[in-house]
């Protein structure tokens, strides 16, 4: 890396001003890597989505065929539903559980700090590890970890991942488990910014707990909540690893989301054109959502 920085000889520096070249030398490695491994694949993906990709035979232009094929494929249509359910459920669940955790664990005590440290563990754990953990906790017989807990409450064993009716909800629960502590940290940062004297004043006015939360705490953490929700929604659309490691899209495609479909299409069935088209659709939706949310947020700030 450093070698590229020292290349401008004194002669060249005299021709183009040294000051103008310098920043570009520092930027070069980053720009090069981003270009080759981010923007080039993106462009290539858009390009390939209009082709029937045939190794050794050469690619054949098919126009929008890949898009119509993907969008009319009923498994992709099912996947849209699963993606939305999973994305919305994980975002909202993550917010609710994350807020609850933040409200519960707010404070300076050493013991609270310990609990926060422990509760945050799911965030630092690699998704693949979490998947293996949950797969075992969801063990379908009555002596599986979660099922034996349910047994104590007098509820029968649930076959979580083996049943098409429950697998998507089981995946959602794992997603919320991973997301909630992350949200907790962001919401805690918002809570720390609340002016403590307001709580005191509210107590003097004899305000109820609910009113206090509604009129003092909520306005203060609303920006944090907005960010948390946007991040989660955008992440929810492209959910892949969680599903891939936990269920692989099964059973019977009941947890197949958009990206696991695209992955199967591209890598298992070698339909690069179709997979690219599916990726481009997702990219457009993600970008559209990001831009819309940013626009709305800016407008909200101005108001």
């Amino acid at each position, binding site marked *: 890396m450093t070698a590229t*920085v*020292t290349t401008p000889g004194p002669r060249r520096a005299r021709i183009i001003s040294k000051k103008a070249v*310098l*920043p*570009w030398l520092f930027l070069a*490695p*980053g720009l090069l*890597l*981003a270009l*080759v*491994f*981010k*923007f*080039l694949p993106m462009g*290539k993906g858009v390009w390939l989505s209009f082709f029937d990709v045939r190794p050794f035979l050469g690619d054949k232009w098919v126009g929008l065929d890949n898009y119509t094929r993907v969008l009319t494929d009923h498994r992709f249509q099912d996947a849209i539903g699963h993606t939305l359910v999973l994305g919305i459920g994980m975002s909202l669940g993550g917010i609710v559980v994350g807020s609850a955790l933040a*409200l*519960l*664990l*707010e*404070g*300076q005590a050493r*013991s*609270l700090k310990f*609990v926060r*440290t422990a509760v*945050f*563990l*799911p965030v630092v754990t*690699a*998704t*693949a*590890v979490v998947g*293996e*953990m949950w*797969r*075992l906790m969801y063990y379908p017989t009555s002596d*599986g*970890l979660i099922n034996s807990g349910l047994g104590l409450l007098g509820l029968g064993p649930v076959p979580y991942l083996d049943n098409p009716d429950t697998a998507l909800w089981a995946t959602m629960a794992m997603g919320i488990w991973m997301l909630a*502590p992350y949200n907790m*940290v*962001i919401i805690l*940062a918002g809570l*720390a910014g609340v002016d*403590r*004297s307001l*709580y005191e004043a509210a107590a003097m006015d004899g305000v109820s707990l609910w009113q*206090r939360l509604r009129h003092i*705490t909520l306005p203060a953490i609303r920006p944090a909540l907005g*960010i948390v929700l946007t*991040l989660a929604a955008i992440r929810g659309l*492209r959910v892949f*690893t969680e599903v*891939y*490691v936990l269920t692989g899209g099964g059973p019977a495609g009941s947890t197949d989301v958009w*990206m696991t479909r695209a992955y199967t299409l591209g890598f298992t069935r070698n339909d690069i054109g179709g997979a*690219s088209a599916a990726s481009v659709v*997702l*990219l457009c939706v*993600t*970008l559209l959502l990001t831009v819309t949310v940013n626009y709305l947020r800016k407008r909200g700030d101005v108001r």
Partner: protein
Amino acid sequence: MSAPAIDPVRTPVSTTPARKSAGQRRTTPARFDTALGWSDRPGPAWALRVLLCVLALGVFAAPFLTIFSGSFSEKASGSTLSFLPHHPTLLNFQVAGERGIWDYFGNSLVIAGGGLLLQLAVCTLAAYALARHKFRGQALILTLFMLTMMLPEEVIAIPLSLVLGHVPVVGVDLKGTVWGVILPLGAWGFSVMLLTEFMKDIPAEIEEAARIDGVGELRMLWQVILPLCKPALGVAGVLGFIMIWDQYLLPLIAAKDPTDYTVTVALSILRTDPEVGSGVVLAGAVIALVPSLIVYLLLQRSLVTGIAAGATKG
């Protein structure tokens, strides 16, 4: 010592001194200290809080205990998970070792170490240019780096695997090498943003004084700016490590055959191996878990500030 610039929240989540310095009165009763008005004296509300804390620990932390105990249990399966191992043994780790788990772990370490070094170097250089230099097209470059943050890896996975198989211009095949995973991780928009913001807040006087002493650009970055950026580098480092360790799709598509997998991806190999039981899978999971655990426990504070700071910037 705390990092004011990377912390727009102003009050770090869990640091008492910072809160004091923010002008909080510590004389007020504890019940005005939290949104729910928790009291710190024993009573029904206090008991409820303790109970709920235990519940939270049970839901979010206890599963980790069960996988640790399961990995040391002689006969671990989904139906025998508990908090203490029965018949403690290292057999599971031994079997996992026979299946090459340490090779996968080695791949992971090389990728995490190399990837993190490259990422920090590349992002620091870029941030230095963006923060301490003025040049034409600056806003555009900043947007480009922000775009890399918005470009989800999942979306470009399929064309990226083609690019890795044949890198344009140079024409090399990176598949099956650690470079196939390391290089795509190099330019991470988040680190660039974070370091740029931090470097912008370093006073110009420091730089000017060094320039008068005849300090060149590289030494300026290495000996003047970087030592002042330690807090931000800590945040970028710990978040970078966790992000790299969590990579799943990238090592999967960059591999030529399963021996190239990282330890997290290799867990699926153990799981689908009919000859090994759940205990071995759990042993693998523990091996994949421990490095992130160590990094987290050592650099917890950087991590928490980083997440809060990153979130407020969107």
